[in-house]
């Protein structure tokens, strides 16, 4: 029972809140990128700043990646707040990538998120990294209910929403597509440069390839396997009797045909009318072309997430944080442990 005068004052605060913009700051740190994004509660992305760890040799060294993240966290945070024109005190929620990913990297982001949330006295929301990729894709491309192909250095999966969750219809049985291309590129002596990721280097070489070299094509039901393909391609490389261009071309054609076939199977199975491509490998034009074709064949609309939001980014965490928070999901500090193997189909998605 509350006296009538309180009702009046409550109404006032509510309308004040409605006028005041609400902001969510999202932190992504699951692999080699440390990224901070800021989203408003109605889906504007005000900032999306990143700094990537580039290994001197080999793939991501988890400890080195975490060290990189802790070194740049302060700068990336300031950059994002400045770009958004938002002060820390204006923030309403802090979201962070809770998994899946590399432990040391995830923990660095989570630590920053916990510190911010407790210092500012605002709620914390742990976000599933894969769900975030899909949600930012939907926000940025306007698709509503897609079959999503998410291909990156750590993930290769085909998902679609069904009864409260994103279900996995197909996925790799071993390594991820981006990983397959990266490892091959390193075996071929290509170097990781700023502005030209290894995958892009393979794509450039592949564009000049002509001869299709026979390599394994392994589709098992809706799943696929890439490790045998990588081994066979590397073996051909070491034999040295075919050109690197032809090998890159053949590797891409085989691998992309496999993921495209699996995506098409999911599309036919679910009868959805939208195809969404996301993740770092989404930048590849040849892969995009293949997916355009299957979308056409099934009267579906193809959309690709803009690169800035397709690779790992803080904005996707911020936006998914908004969706989660506005649907009553918060993560108490005591339960904010990172989840290294948090599968997308274990996450309830109450906002759809």
């Amino acid at each position, binding site marked *: 029972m509350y006296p009538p005068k309180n009702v009046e004052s409550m109404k006032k605060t509510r309308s004040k809140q409605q006028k005041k913009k609400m902001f969510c700051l999202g932190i992504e740190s699951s692999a080699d990128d440390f990224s901070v994004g800021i989203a408003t509660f109605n889906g504007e992305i005000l900032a999306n700043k990143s700094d990537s760890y580039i290994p001197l040799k080999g793939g991501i060294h988890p400890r080195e990646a975490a060290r990189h993240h802790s070194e740049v966290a302060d700068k990336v945070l300031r950059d994002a707040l400045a770009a958004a024109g938002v002060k820390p005190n204006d923030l309403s929620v802090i979201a962070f990538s809770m998994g899946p990913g590399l432990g040391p990297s995830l923990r660095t982001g989570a630590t920053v998120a916990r510190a911010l949330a407790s210092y500012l006295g605002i709620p914390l929301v742990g976000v599933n990294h894969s769900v975030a990729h899909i949600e930012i894709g939907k926000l940025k491309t306007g698709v509503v209910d897609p079959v999503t192909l998410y291909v990156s250095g750590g993930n290769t999966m085909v998902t679609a929403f069904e009864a409260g969750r994103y279900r996995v219809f197909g996925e790799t049985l071993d390594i991820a597509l981006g990983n397959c291309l990266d490892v091959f590129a390193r075996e071929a002596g290509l170097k990781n440069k700023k502005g030209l990721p290894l995958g892009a280097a393979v794509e450039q070489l592949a564009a000049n390839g002509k001869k299709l070299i026979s390599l394994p094509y392994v589709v098992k*039901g809706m*799943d696929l396997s890439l490790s045998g393909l990588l081994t066979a391609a590397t073996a051909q490389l070491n034999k040295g009797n075919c050109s690197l261009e032809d090998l890159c071309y053949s590797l891409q*054609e085989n691998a992309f045909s496999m993921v495209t076939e699996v995506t098409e199977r999911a599309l036919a199975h679910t009868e959805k009318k939208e195809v969404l491509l996301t993740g770092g490998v989404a930048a590849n034009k040849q892969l995009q072309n293949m997916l355009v074709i299957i979308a056409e064949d099934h009267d579906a609309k193809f959309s690709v997430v803009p690169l800035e939001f397709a690779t790992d980014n803080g904005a996707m965490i911020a936006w998914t944080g908004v969706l989660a928070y506005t649907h009553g999901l918060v993560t108490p500090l005591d339960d904010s442990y990172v989840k290294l193997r948090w599968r997308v189909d274990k996450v309830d998605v109450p906002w759809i």
Partner: protein
Amino acid sequence: MDIAVDQILFKKGAEASLFLAKWQGQEVLVKVRLPKRYRPKELDEQIRSYRTLHEPQLMHEAKAAGVPTPLIYMVNVSDSSITMEYVEGQQIKQLLNKLPQDKRRELGFSIGELISKLHSQGLIHGDLTTSNMILNPEGKIFFVDFGLGEKNGELEAKGVDLHLMKRALQSTHFQFWEECFKAVLSGYASILGAEQAEKVCEKLKEIERRGRYVEERKQ
């Protein structure tokens, strides 16, 4: 030999289109693997002709193993088409969610038995989903779509086959996939024998641990 006439599109799948047609006075199904424009021509022809040739062979051997499959009438590699018996009935996919629990378990058990019959002869289906199983009016379950199958007696192949079955249940029948898969496994063990089935299940676990972001994965 006469070709099938009066073809009407029955179902457009991802991999092939199915046409209902008349052949020698009877109703048949023509499965055509149409060219995939997204793949390089060379690779596409390789894949289509390989699958068109192997599918009927596997279906034939499946029958010998005691697993009902449609009769094959004609195979044409040049246009990647297979003309086969039209099996009347319902896809298990459409049926399963509507059944009462005991019927669901019964069906799962029968499916497990059939998978086991295939595996005991070294036959791998390669795409065990509930869309690829048809229950005919007499209560017989037909397995169709052996395009991704192979002859392979290794534990690994059997494990992957069961893994696919599990995944299909998880994504399409998520409300009760656990009880269904349990029923499948008990049917599976009833034919293959507990010891052999246990070995395949161990392999299945190993395959799952190899996947990305699996909770059970070893550190």
